[in-house]
């Protein structure tokens, strides 16, 4: 391909200075953005608006999408195989519960640690690769984990039936919570996901997060400014992977068994579609995307089994006409109106 001619050098320079000048930007924003509080508030009442299992799934996939988007939208790295982290987290948490009889809290921690290690391994092999190449390699590795769980390790993973016979789930600490009924399960998930969302926001708002955004805008220039780009991308992958693993472990707690579908390539694809639907250049967009996507999928699949056709067509239209997604487009329109007024 021809080299990109940089007409907008001056504009970009000021943009880059803003992004990499950490001191000036620091201290301007509060603990967490307003949009995060609003989302958390909506999620608080969600189980009374739609069915509780659907609401729980939206929470879990919402966290997964946010973790995924830290890599895609904020670092500019497309991982096409995020099912690997979600699924490994689901299995790691499930196996800790099933074979070692640990508490639910411990299983979440185990899942985060194991997925961070997996992400580190894939990162060492592939993070230096450019755009599409990294996407292909991560997809291939995700497929490897899928096949591993399917046949060579079926003795431990349960193969296509999934990881069954997980003991009945409940919390003993700090107080007794029965995780088999829907509403306590929702608020347990809400608590964990809420903390994780705030943590992800704080990471992106930190000096490190600003380096990530600088990489997204212009990798070469960030490197020239003296930042270790490879290390930052690697760390971003590990953090993203480990939060995806947390989402996976929550998914196992929610289902009561470890599902092989968590490792399937379609999981990577769905999370990508949801993130793009919500808007990858916003923080909270992916959660909105997850909500809309899952609600639509739930509604369409009542009428037809062929919901993938509609979802795929919607996605093609999205890529062609609204690459900024729902939240991104609304934000842009709002800003335009504001500047006109």
């Amino acid at each position, binding site marked *: 391909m021809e080299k990109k001619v940089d007409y907008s050098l001056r504009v970009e320079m000021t943009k880059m200075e803003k992004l990499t000048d950490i001191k000036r930007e620091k201290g301007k924003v509060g603990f967490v953005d307003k949009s995060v509080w609003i989302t958390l508030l909506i999620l608080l009442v969600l189980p009374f608006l739609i069915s509780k299992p659907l609401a729980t799934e939206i929470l879990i996939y919402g966290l997964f999408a946010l973790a995924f988007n830290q890599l895609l939208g904020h670092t500019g790295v497309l991982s096409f195989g995020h099912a690997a982290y979600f699924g490994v987290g689901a299995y790691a948490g499930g196996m800790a519960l099933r074979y070692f009889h640990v508490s639910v809290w411990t299983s979440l921690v185990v899942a985060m640690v194991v997925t961070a290690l997996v992400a580190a391994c894939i990162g060492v092999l592939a993070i230096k690769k450019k*755009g599409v190449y990294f*996407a*292909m*390699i991560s997809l291939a590795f995700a*497929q490897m984990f899928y096949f591993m769980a399917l046949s*060579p390790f079926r003795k431990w993973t349960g193969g296509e039936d999934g990881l069954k016979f997980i003991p009945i789930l409940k919390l003993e600490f700090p107080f007794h919570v029965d995780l088999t009924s829907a509403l306590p399960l929702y608020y347990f998930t809400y608590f964990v996901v809420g903390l994780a969302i705030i943590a992800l926001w704080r990471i992106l708002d930190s000096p490190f997060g600003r380096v990530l955004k600088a990489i997204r805008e212009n990798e070469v220039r960030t490197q020239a400014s003296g930042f270790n780009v490879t290390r930052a991308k690697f760390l971003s992958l590990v953090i993203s992977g480990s939060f995806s693993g947390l989402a996976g472990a929550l998914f196992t707690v929610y289902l009561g068994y470890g599902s092989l579908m968590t490792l399937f390539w379609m999981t990577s694809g769905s999370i990508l579609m949801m993130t793009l639907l919500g808007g990858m250049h916003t923080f909270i967009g992916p959660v909105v995307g997850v909500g809309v996507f899952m609600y639509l999928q739930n509604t369409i699949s009542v009428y037809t089994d062929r919901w993938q056709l509609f979802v795929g067509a919607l996605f093609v239209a999205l890529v062609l006409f609204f*690459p900024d997604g729902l939240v991104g487009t609304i934000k842009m329109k709002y800003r335009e109106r504001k500047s006109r007024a």
Partner: protein
Amino acid sequence: MFDLSWEIVAMQMIFGLALGCVYVLMAGGLSIIFGLLDVVNFAHGTFYMLGAYAIFVAVSLCGNFWLGLVSAVVIVALVGGVIEWLLLKPLYKRDPLYPLLLTFGVSICIPDIIKICFGLIGKVVPYPSGLMGAYMWGPVMIPKYRLFIIVLTLVVLISLWLFLNKSNLGMIIRASTRDSLMTQVLGINVSRIWTIGFMIGIGLAALAGAVAAPMVASIPDMGVEMTIECFVVVVIGGLGSLGGAIIGGLLIGQVISFVALFAPSWSNVAIFMVMAIILIIRPRGLFGEEGRL
């Protein structure tokens, strides 16, 4: 463990070679498209599936395998051309990730259309009458159809090489792969060249699907797994290099064939492990250009 005679090894090698040839055709198409358009075609396996269904329809309509083979390739290549012209053209000015996302969307839609038209049950194409049975070469059995695949792939590769290196259009395609802006300056309609290149790549995928159709039952969802295996092949061989696609495809064919013999449950995992090893010892792939990726 079990006694391993050289006949079994030889047979397994031929099976692996035939399988590898299917991967070579697939990865060759993927590489041509990437080299020319800078697009990673996620829907490549979907066109493989379409090729298999097209030959199924053509064979059940006219009854002739060879006519079916040709029409399957032509029809699917035309479908690919329409998709490129309609959906991919608007995206070339944007980030190279967007074409990948778009072809992903296409690869989700099309299997559902096939499911609506043909149902979920696998479709089998009968072997052409002249290619049933096997030759015996000493004690080694060589199935005729596999031999045909190997020969066909060889013929296709040689004619592709001749086309790219000796014909005018091939020269323009190579020039546009190297530097599309310069080619455009010289007065070539690069946009049309890209459509042609995309159709050639898709045609190769359809050919792979069509020749594989008698060996496997075609199901609508077989595409994406093929895409992923194809990605593995080009990562091993080096993306954008035709030689890499050939070596990578043949290597993967042998790996699958022999791991299936020794440790059947690992046969699906093995190719990804080979990819991981290649990434450790030679990160740009066997034939990849330094610095491009």
